[in-house]
């Protein structure tokens, strides 16, 4: 697994705030003195209830057209009478809700995916498979982009968590999915792509483990579906001919495969499998200072670097911050989705990503061609770095 950094939770991000006041000079209900003016919504049962509310009002803020509610300003002491009126259903303070803010994770800006978004590049039309622990099927930042899924291991956690066999019972896959392709919807986070179709291919179980056979079957499935990108934030120090065969088959059938280099750093010549296979683009990890992440594996197989330290993204039921080459990998998957949505083949996308990478001064075995630059890969001006 990856480590959690700052513990930001969905509860912090998605909460609604109530109780604020709509109008300056109008007191909060709880703190108001009996003669203070407060703004309330009054639900009524009948015309007599409506009349009672309007009679008590110093101002009528809104008289709803189709529901039996009026919003009025009145004194706090008048509320008691309304609450006890049998023709009134409720009296409640007219609190405020706020638009849910969308956070742009630092990695999105650093790879200039924001430039791509401003230029209308969304990845729409591409199919990105997250070959991992599954994806939360009802996450508000992912749901609109979710296509079909497939499970090669069981989801465990009951029907609430495992609505589909490919639902995420771990967190890891949903986090990776958000990095690659979270929806641009004024809440939560935003992905490198924002409108690609996201597919959950569940090959890792609740503990984040899967057999070579499970993973190979997932890779084979991605190829057989004709999907564009397979993102593998998984691996280990030992290879498997079965998994290599599956990767070869997928690439021969047009799939762009990308994998996490591994989190065994600091170390040399230690890129894990399947990232180390020639068929797969190996991704190392950087931090927000453009340094190599301390945990990142390095080696001659590394072809590209991407942000992987302290990455904020979606998890089932909310958001959290994780670190790992697992987080770097889906940045590249999202970029490949953008390119393939625009007509690139898998091999063209791989070449373009390398040719347009930004030199951040790391050694070849640390970052390969350099840091991912999504805007440059799409032929856009990324001079803002």
């Amino acid at each position, binding site marked *: *697994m*990856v*480590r959690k950094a700052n513990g930001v939770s969905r509860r912090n991000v998605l909460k609604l705030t109530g109780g604020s006041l709509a109008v300056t000079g109008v007191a909060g209900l709880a703190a108001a003195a009996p003669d203070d003016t407060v703004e309330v919504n009054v639900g009524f049962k009948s015309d007599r209830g409506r009349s009672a509310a309007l009679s008590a009002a110093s101002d009528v803020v809104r008289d709803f057209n189709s529901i039996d509610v009026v919003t009025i300003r009145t004194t706090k002491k008048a509320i008691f009478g309304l609450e006890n009126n049998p023709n009134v259903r409720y009296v409640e303070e007219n609190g405020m809700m706020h638009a849910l803010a969308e956070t742009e994770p630092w990695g999105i800006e650093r790879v200039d995916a924001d430039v791509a978004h401003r230029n209308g590049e969304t990845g729409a039309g591409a199919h990105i498979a997250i070959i*991992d*622990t599954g994806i939360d099927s009802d996450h508000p930042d992912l749901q609109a982009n979710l296509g079909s899924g497939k499970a090669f291991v069981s989801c465990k956690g009951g029907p609430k968590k495992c609505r589909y066999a490919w639902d995420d019972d*771990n967190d*890891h896959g949903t986090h990776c999915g958000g990095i690659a392709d979270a929806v641009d919807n004024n809440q939560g986070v935003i992905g490198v792509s924002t409108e690609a179709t996201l597919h959950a291919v569940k090959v*890792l179980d609740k*503990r*984040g*483990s*899967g*057999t*070579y*056979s499970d*993973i*190979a*079957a997932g890779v*084979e*499935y991605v*190829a*057989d579906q004709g999907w564009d990108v397979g993102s593998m*934030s*998984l*691996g*280990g120090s*030992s290879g*498997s*001919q*079965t998994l290599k*065969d*599956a990767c070869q*088959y997928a690439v021969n059938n047009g799939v762009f495969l990308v994998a*996490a280099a*591994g*989190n*065994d750093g600091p170390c040399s010549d230690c890129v*894990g*499998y399947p990232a180390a296979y020639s068929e797969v683009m190996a991704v190392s990890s950087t931090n927000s200072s453009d340094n190599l992440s301390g*945990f990142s594996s390095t080696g001659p197989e590394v072809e590209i670097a991407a942000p992987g330290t302290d990455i904020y993204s979606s998890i089932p039921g909310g958001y959290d911050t994780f*670190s*790992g*080459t*697992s987080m770097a990998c889906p940045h590249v998957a999202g970029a490949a989705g953008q390119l393939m949505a625009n007509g690139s083949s898998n091999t063209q996308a791989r070449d373009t990503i390398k040719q347009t990478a930004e030199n951040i001064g790391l050694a070849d075995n640390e970052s390969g061609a350099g840091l991912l630059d999504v805007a440059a890969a799409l032929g856009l001006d990324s001079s803002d770095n």
Partner: protein
Amino acid sequence: MPDSTTGDSEWEVVEVNVGFQGKEGREAAVDCSVAVVREFESLDIVTIQIPREKWSELADHPGIRYVEANGQTGAPDT
């Protein structure tokens, strides 16, 4: 490793991925298995459980490309 042991090492059952070529190779793999775990849709591979003592015999079959343990991997640790 999803190995299981019967208590007698000769009959220890191991789970392996077998890459084969041709119909004979596939049949050789399936015939020596005690259980077929997965037959791949598009790849010439089967995941099977075999008695460990059958491993060498199967690997030496001309229709078999490789026999490897079906190990586990996963999300990398930091």
